[in-house]
């Protein structure tokens, strides 16, 4: 990684348009706080649409026979869709899709259409700045059927004080 990190020096801070889902004010958020969970249930039509809009022609995301040949029980959720779920977890909590400054996600296990995925996170660290608080959070996406962690990561979010 090179260059200036927006995680430590954001150049834009948008006023929040909505309160955080847990209704805490910016100054009330503490290390250890949980983000309100979201559940995602990817379907074959959703995976097809995601492949289409990203122009991703990998058969493993829409060709079930091919996916089974490869040893999977169904068509796979795209890695960037896993990331998008975790990004949404963060931005819905923050109430501002432009508040996300950094997102790092690693895919641990596959997920397929029909799975139910619980996205959750908690606050790891808070950096206090003049106009905002930088919230650093830990993220997980867990398959409900067996508790397997399909994706994990971290994010940094700029949370305006006003």
């Amino acid at each position: 990684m090179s260059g200036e990190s927006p995680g430590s020096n954001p150049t834009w801070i948008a006023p929040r348009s909505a309160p955080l889902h847990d209704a805490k004010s910016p100054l009330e958020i503490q290390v250890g706080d949980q983000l309100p969970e979201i559940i995602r249930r990817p379907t074959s039509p959703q995976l097809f649409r995601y492949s289409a809009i990203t122009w991703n022609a990998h058969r493993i995301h829409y060709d079930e026979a091919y996916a089974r040949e490869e040893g999977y029980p169904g068509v796979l959720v795209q890695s960037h869709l896993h990331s998008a779920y975790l990004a949404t977890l963060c931005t819905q909590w923050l109430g501002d899709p432009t508040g996300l400054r950094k997102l790092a996600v690693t895919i641990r296990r596959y997920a397929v259409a029909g799975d139910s995925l619980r996205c959750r996170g908690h606050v790891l660290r808070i950096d206090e700045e003049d106009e905002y608080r930088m919230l650093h959070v830990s993220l997980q996406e867990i398959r409900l059927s067996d508790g397997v962690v399909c994706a994990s990561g971290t994010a940094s979010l700029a949370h305006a004080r006003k």
Partner: protein
Amino acid sequence: MPLDAPFLDLLRAQVGVESTRYLGEITRQLVARYARAIGDDDPLFFDPEQARARGHHDVVAPPNLLSSVMCWDEGTPTHELRADGTEGRSLPAGLPASEFRILGGGEEIELLAPVTAGMRVVERVVLRSVLPAEAQGAHMVALTYEHLYSTADGQPLLRSTRTVIVR
């Protein structure tokens, strides 16, 4: 072609080599369809008036849209796609299109400025590292790329560091 020393040398010769290309314009339709595809209904993605009321020029793209689009032009002719459906041209030069599997190995994105409809986007790509690895007895190579997305007039928008596994 096995994952041997000559193969690694071939890949390592490309470390540090930059390429830059114009991707295209971010459209309201692209933003809205991407938001629909990920199941996020935040009005900033769909409603230009709400976006302007919050200080943006137009609708705002979901955070990882830029780095998720695999191909920004018409793509490879269908009959030339790899057997798994992927675009062979996205692989490092010299990598045989049919002999290896390509897997995503994780990504970190830094969001440097909001991406809004109407922006014309340029991408700079550079291969940062080539690392041999082994998992469950299988040899593989981890390629780490840095992608910097900017507007056509030079405003940085998003930096992506992603790892691609070749095995």
